[in-house]
């Protein structure tokens, strides 16, 4: 049975990775998951300098989902390279660094540092605010995205370059096409969907940041639709995520067109979700006489 998948030149032992920000730096889950069994570990979003993040409350549960506004708290790329990278390198898995910057320059610098440090993949989170243009996001502005991606592309030589798309657009496939044209090796989707909740007793937002990103099973139908639309629009691999809780969900994303999948909020519900999903995909393949997991890709019958 062949579980391997390729994200361009990067070969994963299986299609299951972790979603950025939901698996820490791998270490946090090492008691529950044999990290060597994962297709890849995508770490919490990194910035050039360490970031403090947002005040509390940062998370709030909603029906079949959760809002979060962590505010991209992270230890910064320097500390990451010093302490976290060596740790993950002890395991037989691929490492993908998720990054974000406030300017194109910051993205370029980060990508270069990480590429030089030999990470396997770099995932650009383009849904964070661009300070220069105040409130405009790379991920929802096509021209900005184009500029960002082509500049970063010219600076990354070894790592595969993945663009993580924002779901907060009318036609996500148009953004995926831009990523493809600018030389992204793959696109990943979806990031969380902006949402809000209010405590009717105190009349305050449930999240200190006012709004937060919605994740979990609640958003799965939206994510599957976007993966389907994107798969039909681009030739580069699509990494699908958004509410994947079990192997059926993972297979659903692959049928919609995902070459690989990422497991996010499910880690919180079941710390060994990733491992369970890998095992259960294998059982599903065995039961259905599927010898190569790649057969599932985009195999939805229309």
């Amino acid at each position, binding site marked *: 049975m062949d579980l391997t998948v390729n994200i361009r030149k990067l070969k994963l032992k299986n299609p299951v990775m972790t979603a950025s920000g939901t698996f820490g730096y791998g270490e*946090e889950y090492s008691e529950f998951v044999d990290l060597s069994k994962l297709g890849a570990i995508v770490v919490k979003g990194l910035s050039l300098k360490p970031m403090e*993040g947002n005040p509390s409350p940062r998370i709030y549960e909603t029906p079949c989902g*959760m809002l*979060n506004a962590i505010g991209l*708290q992270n230890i910064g790329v320097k500390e990451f390279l010093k302490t976290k990278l060596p740790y993950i390198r002890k395991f037989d898995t691929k490492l993908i660094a998720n990054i974000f910057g406030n300017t194109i320059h910051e993205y370029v610098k980060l990508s270069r540092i990480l590429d030089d440090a030999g990470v396997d993949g770099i995932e650009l989170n383009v849904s964070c605010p661009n300070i220069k243009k105040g409130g405009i996001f790379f991920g929802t502005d096509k021209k900005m995205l184009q500029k960002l991606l082509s500049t970063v592309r010219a600076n990354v030589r070894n790592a595969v370059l993945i663009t993580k798309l924002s779901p907060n657009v009318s036609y996500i496939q148009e953004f995926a096409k831009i990523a493809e044209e600018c030389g992204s090796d793959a696109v990943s989707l979806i990031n969380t969907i902006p949402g809000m909740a209010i405590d009717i007793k105190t009349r305050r937002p449930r999240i200190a940041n006012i709004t937060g990103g919605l994740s979990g099973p609640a958003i799965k139908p939206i994510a599957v639709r976007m993966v389907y639309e994107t798969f039909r629009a681009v030739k580069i691999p699509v990494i699908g995520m958004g509410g994947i809780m079990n192997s059926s969900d993972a297979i659903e994303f692959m049928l919609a067109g995902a070459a690989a999948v990422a497991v996010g909020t499910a*880690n*919180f519900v*079941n*710390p060994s979700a990733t491992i369970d999903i890998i095992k259960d995909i294998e059982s599903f393949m065995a039961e259905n006489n599927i010898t190569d997991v790649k057969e599932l890709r985009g195999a939805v019958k229309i």
Partner: protein
Amino acid sequence: MSKYIRAKITENTPVNKDHTLLGCESYRLVLSPDDIPQRSLPGQFYMIGTDSSYDPLLKRPFSIFRETSSAEGGELQFLYRIKGKGTKLLKEMRKGETVNVLGPLGNGYPMPDKNLTPVLIAGGIGIASLFPLAEKLSGNIHFLYGARTKNELLMLNELKGLVKKELIISTDDGSEGEKGTVVDVLNRFLTLNPQLSTLNLLYSCGPSPMLEAVSKFAAEKGIKCYISMEESMACGVGACLGCTVKTKKGYKRVCKEGPVFPSEEIVWT
């Protein structure tokens, strides 16, 4: 090592007399896990959830109240108060049904020097976390326990049997023990026992405004104080950065660096 295991419910019953009174409804949950996790420290907690539905989605954190182990296996005990969706559904679960538990998690209370007789200050359901500390210290403590009203008080008999020094009960409405908040009581207690102030140590668990008041009090008097903080949690293992509190050294995770913090570290906002 913490573990993620399934556990059968062996008891899930109300613990206070008039437990249907609004805001007081409290239960004892006894679990017998498939696999015996590592022994916990007082102040540590477990994340408890079910997998029958995605609503509620996340596990909820509960302090470990009691742990027993026998030849047939171990038992985990929790005390919980009905708050929202998750606890409402938990109370509907019956003996024989299973839950998923993750733990033990967090740091737990640091042990005091042998020559000290610390003061434990519990507010409301905070008793669940401080009771095992009192047990571990063999009752060689003072215990102040406050609640809004009589019905909210739990484990009074057990406390009476356990606490070897002062045990002072208080309620906001005066329906049992002294009338006033636990902080009022603490104030009076240390005024009456000035010798305790300088050499002593406070441990506190309860609602956030109470913890803030206790912390301020401790700072004023220059007493070392450990408090157990509460924040909404998603992962419980330090991965999501959802449960942070502001400290003088930046945001810290309640589930990992906490839930117990030296009170002087916390930045109250």
